[in-house]
């Protein structure tokens, strides 16, 4: 078994002591896993990320990162938000350099680390462009590059492709899997698209109704590397239908 890089032990959390999201929650994520988290909107998926990044504090229990219990988790994970959140006043190069700047890396040193990566991220020749000059897919790649440059082994991606058109989305998914393998990261990926979850992940965690104690876990029965056609496999199709039914009945949505 691989070593766990992220653990929730008996974690409870609520907003203002009223809306309880997690109640005695347990979770283990292992090194270099690709995990997707699905659930209806408002089911607490993003709260999980807010806890991991340290934007929220657990009321009870402990969260472990890379084998140590960390109280202040700021700067310990690479978070990629739903909107790309690039700074419009910074060029691609300057945007990617933000986490390095925060870590005290000099400008020249930062540039020399970023420039070789641009090719791989499909951003060659765009280093001096501003975000407004880029396509949606390119902006997401800059945002992903920025989260990779935090240097963290744990990447948290919050519906990163939800604003992209179907074709761009597909190529971004394939590209992400490529990067994940090459960079040896552990990825937690929030989505509400069951197909995306099945295509990308080792395990799918399903958020149903709050408060959450344990998440229902689905192991994706597919080998890697995968192609989109694998999703037509009868076992996968059944799994997909099951998941969709579950998401529909989960909570009191529609």
């Amino acid at each position: 078994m691989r070593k766990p890089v992220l653990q929730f032990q008996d974690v409870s959390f609520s907003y203002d002591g009223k809306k309880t999201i997690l109640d005695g929650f347990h979770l283990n994520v292992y090194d270099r896993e690709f995990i997707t988290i699905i659930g209806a909107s408002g089911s607490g998926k993003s709260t999980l990320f807010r806890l991991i990044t340290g934007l929220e504090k657990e009321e009870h229990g402990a969260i472990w990162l890379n084998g140590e219990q960390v109280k202040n988790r700021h700067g310990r994970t690479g978070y990629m938000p739903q909107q790309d959140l690039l700074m419009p006043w910074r060029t691609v190069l300057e945007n990617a350099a933000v986490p390095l700047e925060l870590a005290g890396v000099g400008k020249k040193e930062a540039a020399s680390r970023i420039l070789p990566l641009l090719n791989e991220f499909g951003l060659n020749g765009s280093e001096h462009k501003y975000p407004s000059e880029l396509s949606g897919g390119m902006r997401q790649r800059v945002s992903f590059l920025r989260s990779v440059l935090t240097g963290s082994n744990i990447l948290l991606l919050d519906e990163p492709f939800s604003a992209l058109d179907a074709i761009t989305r597909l190529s971004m998914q394939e590209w992400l899997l490529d990067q994940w393998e090459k960079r040896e990261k552990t990825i937690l990926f929030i989505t509400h698209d069951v197909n995306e979850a099945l295509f990308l992940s080792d395990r799918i965690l399903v958020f149903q109704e709050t408060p959450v104690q344990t998440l229902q876990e689905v192991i994706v029965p597919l080998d890697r590397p995968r192609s989109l056609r694998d999703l037509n496999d009868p076992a996968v199709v059944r799994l997909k239908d099951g998941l969709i039914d579950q998401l529909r009945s989960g909570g009191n949505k529609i």
Partner: protein
Amino acid sequence: MKKYGPAILIVVFLFGVWELASRTVNLPFIFPPPSGVAIRFWELRETLLFDHLPPTLAIILIGLAISIVLGVALAVWMAVSETAERAFYPLVISSQMIPTIALAPIFIMFFGYGIWSKVVVTVLITFFPITVNTFDGLKSSSKELRELMLTMGGTKKDIFLKVQVPSAKPHFYSGLKVAVTLSVIGAAIGEWLGAQAGLGYFSRRMMTQFDGAAVFAPIVLLSAVGIVLFLLVKVLEKRSMKWRNKE
């Protein structure tokens, strides 16, 4: 230039109407035609440009400089400290209910006929747009971006310098543009009340002599000063925010 065609046409038309009306009324000492103002301007060019423009320009520039320094400092303080915000923000807003211009005579009493009474009037009316715009700009930065900086280990200072200050820049420049136009008004009004030189002073003195064209001539120059300063701010704005030109 084509873009401004309609505006230029309207101006030409208005001047035409003015010229015609003035010639019909034929009271040049109180209602001079534009051509009369232009001729008088030419006759007075040396007095206006070398005796009266420099003191007015000095008031405008010193007043603006003080306003920028104080306004930005207060805006930063209010953005950083919630206590300062609660203490000063309501005061800054309600200070605008005071007719500042009406207070100008008091400042003439306090500071005399020298440059400083006029500078104070200018500062008082230009301070507000700079402070409030800069403050709103500092506060306008996106919450998500600030949180992202936190997740990357950014400190309060990092967030201020790398997120809040750049977000405030466009707001600061809009405030400055308003302030620049107001500064010209402030300087001129200050001079009406008490001065020994200056375009506002000169204009008012000519009024007592019933020289209508000479009342207008310094106003033409004042407007030109306002326009030049405004364009200067626009150039600065474009230079310091290159990314905006690409949008």
